[in-house]
């Protein structure tokens, strides 16, 4: 098919515009990477954008690794992600399984009660008082239990379970399978792509969340990585890292340290994500279909 002149112009404009958009999107990340690898003193005196690291130094990374809070934060985050996702998946599949069964007397009311929470909530303060009231303060469970189920995810999984052919369920029941067997041996394996997507959604959520930790945790030994990052990046508290370096350097080192902390905390997820992209994308789409 032949293209008119105007259409060709449009095509080139389109390619050019999207390329610029991609560069604008990714450049801040590249800047952070280059800055983290730069020599701190050169970085401080440099003005303008970076197209490559200035000099080369991993001094900032060495400092980050030697900072005990960061490694401890990393470990806490891993505990929260693993424990949190386990609770999430277990609870979400229990709920989804129940709601996908037919002929249950009170199912309708439970569903209504669950959906209502998507539109109205008690708000921050009452939730805070409840979590404190049941004694979860300074306990990693405070980061896991109050967010056991994301209602949108629950509905996504219920839809996936309802798509499992009834004949399969019946034949499994005929073989004497109980509900737990049905759930773990039939439903979850058959809805594996959806379950995988939910695992990723929940894992990213736990990895990135910081607010609940900031209001429910007082003991710094329990701080997840994101709270440590907040101290360094937002509250500007790099003194305990850069201590020992002579004063003239401190500011420059602090900047380089901030950039390397960002890389250290973000690289794992950004490296993994392109390989898992299709699951994430699938998740968004099934989430949309339900609406």
């Amino acid at each position, binding site marked *: 098919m032949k293209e008119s002149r105007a259409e060709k112009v*449009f095509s080139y404009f389109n390619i050019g515009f999207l390329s610029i958009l991609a560069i604008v999107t990714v450049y801040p990340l590249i800047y952070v990477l280059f800055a983290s690898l730069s020599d701190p003193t050169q970085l401080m005196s440099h003005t303008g954008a970076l197209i490559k690291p200035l000099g080369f130094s991993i001094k900032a990374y060495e400092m980050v690794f030697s900072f005990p809070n960061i490694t401890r934060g990393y470990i806490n985050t891993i505990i929260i992600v693993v424990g949190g996702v386990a609770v999430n998946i277990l609870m979400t599949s229990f709920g989804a399984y129940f709601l996908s069964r037919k002929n249950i007397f009170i199912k309708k009311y439970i569903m209504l009660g669950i959906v209502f929470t998507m*539109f109205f909530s008690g708000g921050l303060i009452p939730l805070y008082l409840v979590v404190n009231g049941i004694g979860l303060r300074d306990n990693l469970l405070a980061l896991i239990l109050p967010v056991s189920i994301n209602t949108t995810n629950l509905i996504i999984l219920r839809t996936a379970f309802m798509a499992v052919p009834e004949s399969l369920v019946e034949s499994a029941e005929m073989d004497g399978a109980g509900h737990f067997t049905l759930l773990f041996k039939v439903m979850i394996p058959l809805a594996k792509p959806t379950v995988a997507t939910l695992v990723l959604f929940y894992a990213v959520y736990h990895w990135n969340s910081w607010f609940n930790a900031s209001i429910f945790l007082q003991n710094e030994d329990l701080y997840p990585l994101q709270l440590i990052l907040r101290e360094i990046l937002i509250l500007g508290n790099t003194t305990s890292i850069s201590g020992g370096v002579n004063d003239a350097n401190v500011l420059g080192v602090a900047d380089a340290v901030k950039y390397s902390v960002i890389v250290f905390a973000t690289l794992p997820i950004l490296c993994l994500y392109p390989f898992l992209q299709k699951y994430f994308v699938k998740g968004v789409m099934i989430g949309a279909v339900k609406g």
Partner: protein
Amino acid sequence: MKLETMRPETIKPETTAKTETKSNTRKIPLKKRIIKDIIKNKILYIMVLPVVLYYIIFHYVPMLGIVIAFQDFTPGKGIFGSNFVGIKNFIDFFSDPSFIRVLKNTAVISISTLVIGFPAPIILALLLNELKNKYFARTIQTITYMPHFISLVVICGMIREFTLDTGVINQILGFFGWEPVTMLNKPELFTPIYVLSSIWQEIGWGSIIYLAALAGVDQEQYEAARLDGAGRLKQIFHVTLPAIMPTIIILLILNIGKAFSIGYEKIILLYNPGIYETSDVISTLVFRKGLEELNWSFSAAVGLFNSVINFALLITANWISRKTNETSLW
């Protein structure tokens, strides 16, 4: 203990099942069926018990906790011991000097986000859809989805670094004669920074849903439009856009419904007392009054005010859409 408390619930459906089976099929050994059914459904209810408990404890108890908005609550006295003060907390809020400020800021930030942030992913999806080279399209998608996965703390840390008077944005603007200034200390720059960085983070991710809708557009319609002599731009306006309009409207309803629930998380990480005049919104006021100043009842009242507005907005947006377009959430 748990099994005991489950019993009343489990019996209900069984009794109805019993009467049904009685009238329909008398000859099948009833006892066995009922026992089997009870065992089966008991496990089902045990399964859903933690789920129900979760929703009760972390959603419905906090909803009941709203009563503290009408009390002079102190944790020492508890909900049952605190005095009721009627709507005093609401009157305090409405006459507070911060009331107009947070209302205005919430409106400004949410309307800016909606007006600029809502069309952006639609435009991106339309442009991506026009690309012939699918490999190029995939690369652009992978890159633009990326910022969605970076944590808010890191994003805000980057924004703070970049917008410092010595930061890279000021340095680059400096080449064009811009006076370096710590941008987050300038009240008038807060909304632009907030909105633009949100678009940067979410434009790619937001486009996924439209790309999915675009993939479902009937190719024959393009064929027909082409035969009628429609160019690509005309095809976009007369075939593509109408085809994805239902998706756009549903998402618009959802976004309008959420308009007044601007999260506190990003704002808390970005603002400082010097720019409260443009950055303090309803949810951050709830956070500060409640968790920093421990003014529980006042804070809960502000939170309830916000919840009610959100709920009303969602209902209204849905109602308008149903009247005018026959597309609605329910």
